[in-house]
C-alpha cells in the first residue's frame, strides 16, 4: 500500500512520536485503536495514519502466514485459534478504521475536496473521493434535481446564481461536543476565541468539550476522544 500524503514535517513528527510510543511499549494495535476511536468520535476527517496502517498490515500479513504455517505443521489447535483471534481483532480495527473514513468521505466529499482536508486522505481515498464518489453523486443530483430547475438555480454548490459563496455544501459540524481524555496534563486551555473560558485539563480526567476548541489537541495527539 502506498503511503498517504502528508507534509514532510508533520509526518516526521508523527513518526517520531510513534517511535517514542513504541519504545514505551505501546503496540501498533494500541495506536490503531486510538486512531479508530478518534476517527469515530471526531466530526471531521482526520489525518490518514499512513505509516501506522502500513505497519499494521505488515504485522497482519506476517501473522496470517504464521497461522497458515501452524495449521500445516499441526500445531496445537488451541494456539492456532488464539493467534487467529489476535488476527481477527487487529483486522477488525483496521477495516473499521478504513470504513469510517470512507463514510466520512462520502458524506462530506465536496467540502473535503474544496479544503485542505483533502491532504488528509490517502492516495486511494483521494481516488475514491474524486473520480468516483463525487462524480457519481453529482451526476445523480444533476439528473434528478438540478437539470429540472430553472436557469440560475442549477448549481450543486450554490443555492442560486446570486449566492456569493458555496452555500449548499454539507460540512461537518465542528461545533459539536465530544468526550475526551488526556493522557498527560495539558494545563490551562483556552476554549473559545475570546479567552473567557479557560479549563485546566488534568491527566486522565474526562471532559465534554466543543470539538472545535480542542481539534488542535486531537491532531497533535495530546488528547484522545472516547
Amino acid at each position, binding site marked *: 500500500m502506498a503511503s498517504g500524503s502528508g507534509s514532510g514535517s508533520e509526518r516526521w513528527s508523527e513518526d517520531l512520536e510513534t517511535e517514542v510510543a513504541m519504545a514505551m511499549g505501546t*503496540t*501498533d*494495535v*494500541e495506536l490503531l*485503536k486510538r486512531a479508530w*476511536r478518534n476517527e*469515530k*468520535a471526531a*466530526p471531521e476527517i482526520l489525518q490518514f495514519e499512513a505509516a501506522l496502517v502500513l505497519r*499494521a498490515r505488515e*504485522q*497482519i500479513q506476517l*501473522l496470517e502466514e504464521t497461522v497458515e504455517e501452524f495449521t500445516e505443521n499441526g500445531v496445537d489447535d*488451541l*494456539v492456532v*485459534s*488464539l*493467534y487467529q*483471534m*489476535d*488476527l481477527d*481483532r*487487529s483486522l*477488525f480495527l483496521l477495516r473499521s478504521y478504513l470504513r469510517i473514513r470512507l463514510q466520512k468521505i462520502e458524506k462530506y466529499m465536496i467540502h473535503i475536496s474544496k479544503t485542505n482536508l483533502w491532504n488528509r486522505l490517502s492516495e486511494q481515498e483521494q481516488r475514491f473521493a474524486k473520480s468516483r464518489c463525487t462524480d457519481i453523486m453529482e451526476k445523480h443530483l444533476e439528473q434528478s434535481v438540478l437539470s429540472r430547475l430553472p*436557469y*440560475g438555480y442549477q448549481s450543486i454548490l*450554490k*443555492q*442560486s446564481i*446570486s*449566492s*456569493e459563496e458555496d*452555500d*449548499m455544501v*454539507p*460540512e*461537518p*459540524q465542528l*461545533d*459539536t*461536543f*465530544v*468526550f475526551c481524555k488526556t493522557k498527560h496534563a495539558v494545563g490551562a486551555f483556552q*476554549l*473559545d476565541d475570546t479567552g473567557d*473560558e479557560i*479549563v485546566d485539563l488534568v491527566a486522565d*480526567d*474526562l*471532559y*465534554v*468539550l*466543543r470539538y472545535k*476548541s480542542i481539534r488542535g489537541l486531537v491532531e497533535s495527539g495530546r488528547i484522545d476522544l*472516547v
Partner: protein
Amino acid sequence: MAGQSNPDLSVFSAPEVEFLAEDEMVEIVPNIRMEALNMICGDFGPFFPQIASKVPLWLAVALKKRGKCTIRTPEWMSVERLTQVLEAERESSREFQPLPFHYVEISRLLFDHAHDDIPDLYMVRSLIEDIRDVRFHKVETGLETISGRTHAVKLKNLSAMEVNIVRPFMVRALQAFYRHDSPQMIQQPRTMGGSRPQAVDRGPRRDLRPR
C-alpha cells in the same frame, strides 16, 4: 443542507465498547503448559500450570472457555472493596468513585464466562448492580445542571458505558445551549438544520437583475 439529519450521536455501539474492554489486563492461573504467545497486540506467557500470568481479558476468556485456566477476580471486584465504593457513591451526590473505565463490561464478561472463579458471586453481582444504579441516577441528576454558560463539563471517573449512555442527550443539550447562547443567534436567525447562516438572509436585492 436543509433537513440534514443530526450526525449519528451514538459513537460506539455496545459490542464496540465491549471490544475495547476486552483489552483490559487480567490475571489468569493456567492449568496447562504453553509457550509464549507473540501476538500483534503484545507478548504473553510462557504459561506454566498454577503460575499466575497477565493477559488481556479476551485471551483469558478464550482460555477459560476451553477449560485451560481460571481467572483471578480483579482486586476491585472483592466484596470488601465494592461495599466501600457503594457507600462512598451513596454519600456523595456529585462525585463518582474511581473504578476501572470499563468496570461494567469487565464484570459482565467475568459473570458470563468465569462465574465459578468469583468468590461471593451473588454478593459481588448485586453490589455491582447497586453501584451502577446509584451512578446512573447521579448521571441523570448531573445532567440537570447543564446550563447556557456551559462550555466544558468535567466528568471525573465516569465509565465507558456511562459515557455512552449520556452522550446523545448531553451532546444535544450542550449544542442547543451553545447555539442559543451565541450572539449570531440574535442577529441572524438560522434556518432549520443549517449549520451556517444561509443565503436566505442576504442579497435578495441582487437577485432582481434581468437575465
